């Protein structure tokens, strides 16, 4: 039985190996992704993001439980940062989900960012496809603990759950561009500590200001304590209400098409770069070119233009 068939039959080992093939940028990666493509597009993909320590893993653990109560198969991709110094990583998100470790309907995969910025890793989108093809009903991407600008998860998920906690600043923080703008659903976690209600009203205030969105598209704000398991069922219900709303309104399809657009653009860009760099013999020449630009013998834009002209003459472009 080939790898794709094994993935489709839900074979744990095959799924795990396939993700490694993608994550390690092996030569098998492209064919694998193409071969599973026809079997993807069925799973709901939820992005869970928020600052470090906001309780993302604990809330994911709760969502897993609710999904299992409904007999849904669920996969989690938990991303943690790689060390910029050693390249190593401590992947500790699944620590909070280990009660589900032996449940056959749950698959948790930790991924290190491996130098990728944006809150996820380069292999994340491929891993989503593997889980999708393997028949998981729901896939959760738990991002790295993010700051204000790591919003790339929006390019992968059907719904973004932004997990926040009280005590991280005033409503001006909430108004800023970036992470606050990508949420489809806000969770104010650790609702048992002081300031949770205030944070909720600050987010409400921010959303009311100048929002021209249709009423139904204004993101709901839920209060919960993942640790004490209060408010979590309501959050869970809200997630799936939103997902169904997005699906029925066509918004989900639009987002998925944008995702495909980005994917195609990305593949084109990387393939073109590959061709160009090979033809230019980039590896051998680059240090020579750097020297010339450094010594002001040539100008960067003009130099690249000339090189492109040469390639045009050779009919490479």
């Amino acid at each position, binding site marked *: 039985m080939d790898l794709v068939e094994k993935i489709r039959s839900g074979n*744990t*080992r095959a*799924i*795990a*190996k396939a*993700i*490694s093939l993608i*994550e*390690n*940028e092996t030569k098998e990666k492209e064919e694998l992704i193409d071969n599973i493509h026809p079997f993807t597009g069925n799973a709901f993909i939820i992005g869970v993001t928020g600052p470090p320590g906001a309780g993302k893993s604990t809330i994911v653990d709760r969502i897993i439980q609710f999904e299992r109560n409904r007999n849904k198969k669920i996969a989690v991709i938990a991303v943690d940062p*790689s*060390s910029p*110094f*050693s*390249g*190593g*990583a*401590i*992947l*500790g998100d*699944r*620590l909070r989900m*280990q009660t589900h*470790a*032996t449940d056959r309907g749950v*698959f*948790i*995969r*930790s991924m*290190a960012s*491996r130098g990728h910025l944006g809150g996820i890793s380069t292999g994340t989108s491929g891993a989503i496809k593997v889980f999708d093809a393997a028949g998981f009903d729901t896939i959760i991407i738990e991002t790295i603990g993010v700051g204000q600008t790591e919003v790339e998860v929006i390019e992968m998920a059907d719904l973004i759950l932004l997990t926040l906690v009280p005590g991280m600043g005033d409503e001006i923080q909430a108004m800023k561009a970036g992470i606050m703008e990508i949420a489809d659903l806000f969770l104010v976690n650790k609702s048992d500590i002081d300031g949770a209600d205030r944070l909720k009203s600050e987010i409400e205030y921010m959303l009311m200001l100048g929002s021209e969105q249709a009423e139904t598209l204004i993101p709901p704000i839920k209060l919960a304590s993942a640790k004490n398991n209060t408010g979590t069922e309501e959050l869970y219900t809200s997630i799936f209400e939103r997902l169904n709303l997005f699906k029925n309104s066509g918004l989900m399809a639009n987002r998925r098409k944008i995702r495909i657009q980005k994917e195609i653009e990305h593949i084109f860009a990387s393939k073109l770069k590959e061709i160009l760099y090979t033809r230019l013999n980039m590896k051998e020449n680059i240090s020579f070119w750097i020297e010339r630009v450094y010594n002001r013998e040539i100008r960067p834009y003009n130099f690249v233009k000339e090189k492109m002209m040469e390639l045009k003459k050779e009919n490479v472009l």
Partner: protein
Amino acid sequence: MDKKIRIVIAKPGLDGHDRGAKYIARALKDAGYEVIYTGIRQTPESIVATAIQEDVDFVGLSLLSGAHNELFPRVVNLLKEQEAGEIVVFGGGVIPEEDLGFLEKKGVQAIFRPGAPISDVISFIKSKTGSTAA
């Protein structure tokens, strides 16, 4: 891109002393490995399920309760049963010298006892992966 070496560090059994496990996890991260840390009170079943889902190359077990002769070989056997026998199992903790031969025979490929320098662990991992890079 080179294949990254991935390692599960887990604590089977009932003791809650995770300082050693955390120390090892941290040191392996600093040596350039991707370490999946599962925390305390894991069953051999949950450790093996984790190792397979995470597609790791090594499983490192830390145990201070005295149940190593029971639990370490159980992890090795479960991996074999699930066709993941190529995953290398090593262990650490308060393990008496007279148990080392038994554990080795059961397929635990190295044991690091209290006071073992971290460089020993890293040399062991390198010797098994046949590379100098992490």
